């Protein structure tokens, strides 16, 4: 028998990676229409203590009766004790999740995926670009950076949504804007209400904010997350302004059933979004033509 196979077959049965941990909902915050932030605590204390993740990673969340969904972790690993997820109501499973109340059980497994390369980002400028719900995984990164502010150089946050109503983490983002150790630029698609005007720095697309960023591109790491259609334009704009493609990281969404490279649904070209991503350098888009 082959050595490699012998090694594989002689392993003892591993901990089941498909088996989630029971958790209880501790808090639910309504962020915007159809968007809620859920906080969870694992029923098993030891899991709570040992929980650690990298910003940009995601979990597989079992919604009782409905099934499993991949959701990015929006809390920062620097703040322990709870796992937070922000979920938009879009379909079968998220609908059921949105009906749950604090105290209800769910089950979670993870964290999965690679996350943003925070280690190599250290010592550089960071430009964070978020569109809509894309702010969720980036919120994790933002707080990670702010809690270790000294390790990073300049930080920019660009955030665009439909309208003020759909701005997520409103209070947090307002307070960020008041800080002087980072710059925030916010945009909205619509400029209809008074609130819209008060909130946004300008009306229009996220891409229009990029020229306003005053950073040395070669010294900067960029983290992008947004709706699938936005990537192409954001990527083009960033390249135009001289950001190196190996320093631009995009977080992608795909259909996922397992989160651990077994179900195949998340394939992007030859890569799996779950184990090779969901964060990819923009360079990959050349190899993975259908990525964006």
């Amino acid at each position, binding site marked *: 028998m082959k050595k490699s196979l012998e090694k594989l077959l002689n392993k003892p049965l591993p901990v*089941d990676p498909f*088996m989630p941990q029971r958790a209880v909902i501790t808090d639910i915050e309504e962020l915007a229409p159809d968007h809620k932030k859920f906080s969870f605590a694992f029923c098993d204390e030891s899991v709570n203590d040992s929980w650690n993740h990298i910003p940009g990673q995601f979990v597989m969340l079992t919604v009782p009766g409905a099934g*499993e969904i991949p959701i990015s972790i929006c809390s920062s690993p620097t703040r322990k004790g709870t796992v937070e997820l922000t979920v938009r109501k*879009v379909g079968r499973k998220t609908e059921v999740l949105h009906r749950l109340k604090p105290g209800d059980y769910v089950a979670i497994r993870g964290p999965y995926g690679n996350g943003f390369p925070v280690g190599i980002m250290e010592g550089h400028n960071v430009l964070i670009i978020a569109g809509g719900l894309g702010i969720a995984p980036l919120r994790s990164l933002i707080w990670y950076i702010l809690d270790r502010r000294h390790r990073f150089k300049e930080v920019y946050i660009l955030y665009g949504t439909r309208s003020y109503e759909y701005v997520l983490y409103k209070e947090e983002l307002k307070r960020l804007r008041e800080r002087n150790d980072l710059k925030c630029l916010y945009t909205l698609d619509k400029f209809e209400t008074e609130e819209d005007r008060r909130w946004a720095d300008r009306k229009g697309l996220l891409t229009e904010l990029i020229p306003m960023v005053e950073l040395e591109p070669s010294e900067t790491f960029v983290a992008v997350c947004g709706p699938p259609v936005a990537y192409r334009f954001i990527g083009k704009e960033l390249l135009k302004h001289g950001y190196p493609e190996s320093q631009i990281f995009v977080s992608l*969404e795909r259909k996922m059933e397992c989160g651990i490279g077994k179900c*195949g649904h998340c394939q*992007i070209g*030859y890569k799996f979004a779950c184990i090779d991503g969901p964060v990819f350098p923009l360079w990959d888009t050349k190899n993975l*033509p*259908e990525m964006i």
Partner: protein
Amino acid sequence: MDFHIERAKVLPKSNLAKFLEGLKNLSTLIAPVKKGDKFIFSEIEKVSDVAVNYTRTILPPKKFLVPYRRERFSYSTDTLQFNKEFKVRDQIIFGVHSCDLHGISILDSVYLKENPDPRYLEIRKRTVLIGISCMPDEFCFCLSTGTAFPDGANWDLFLTDIGADYFVTIGSPKGDEIVLKLRKLFKDIEKKDLYLYKESTSKKKKAFKLEKLPDLERISQLIELEYDSEVWKEGSERCLGCGTCTNVCPTCFCYTSVDVPTLDGKKVKRIEFTTSCQYPYYSLVAGGHYFKPDRASRFKHRYYHKFVGYPYQIEKLGCVGCGRCSAECPAGISIVETINRLRGIDEKELREATEQASSR
């Protein structure tokens, strides 16, 4: 137990039925049987049903390692207690061809290397694989994929047809044990047997129509470079998107899982079922966005995954040349033809390339 060490034995064909009977007494026996004009792997009740000289089964033996519909676990709705109910039995899969053995190797890599799946591991541990040699038909191209012969043993026993007998190579302690238990049926190898065994290799190679074989050298790069080729579009016009090609493939592993509540609402089962990248919903995400929006992109994806994805993930081609996808496609689309057209190579060049490959 006797101390027993042996590399190979000879099983006279006349003893085959007894051998099978012996296997059946050891545990559940699975082997190819005839169904209509085709063959399928099936649990054996009467050993006389076993078809030894088959070319290919409709579905690969994969179905006994990764059932097409399987329960991952169930949980109670009120307290969310998880419960695994699946049972694993000992099984012997007899009569597996070389390509399918290679296919199982690929599944092993997928399921056991990164994030090993305990269910697969348990099934795999309790499965004995007994291979058998075969002759190619017009759909086979395992010579190109390098899977025409079993390599460094992921099998327990392998039977090579050498005329009046089978030359039985022993690949694992489990295989050895079987031979030991049924040793009355076997003969020791003689020089002529070894000669015939060696000869069988070239005999099989010669049975391929070389000019029909695809050239798979540098296929990964080729497919990447031909990303925008018209060949994809032309193929996809005929493709029905019926998923047959992936469902019959020994290396495809994609699945979808659904949580199915029971009627009393007290329990939920998580069911996983085999799916195909050829189905539109496969790449559908929230907001109605299809990542593989048209048939051409789905059609192309299969080749992309087989010839670029697998090499990236597990360092092997994802195709073992079994020819099932071409033999079963209702629209008659052939993987070999697609590759040849992609390559755009002329006949002569192709022959030279494969002759070289086969003489290696």
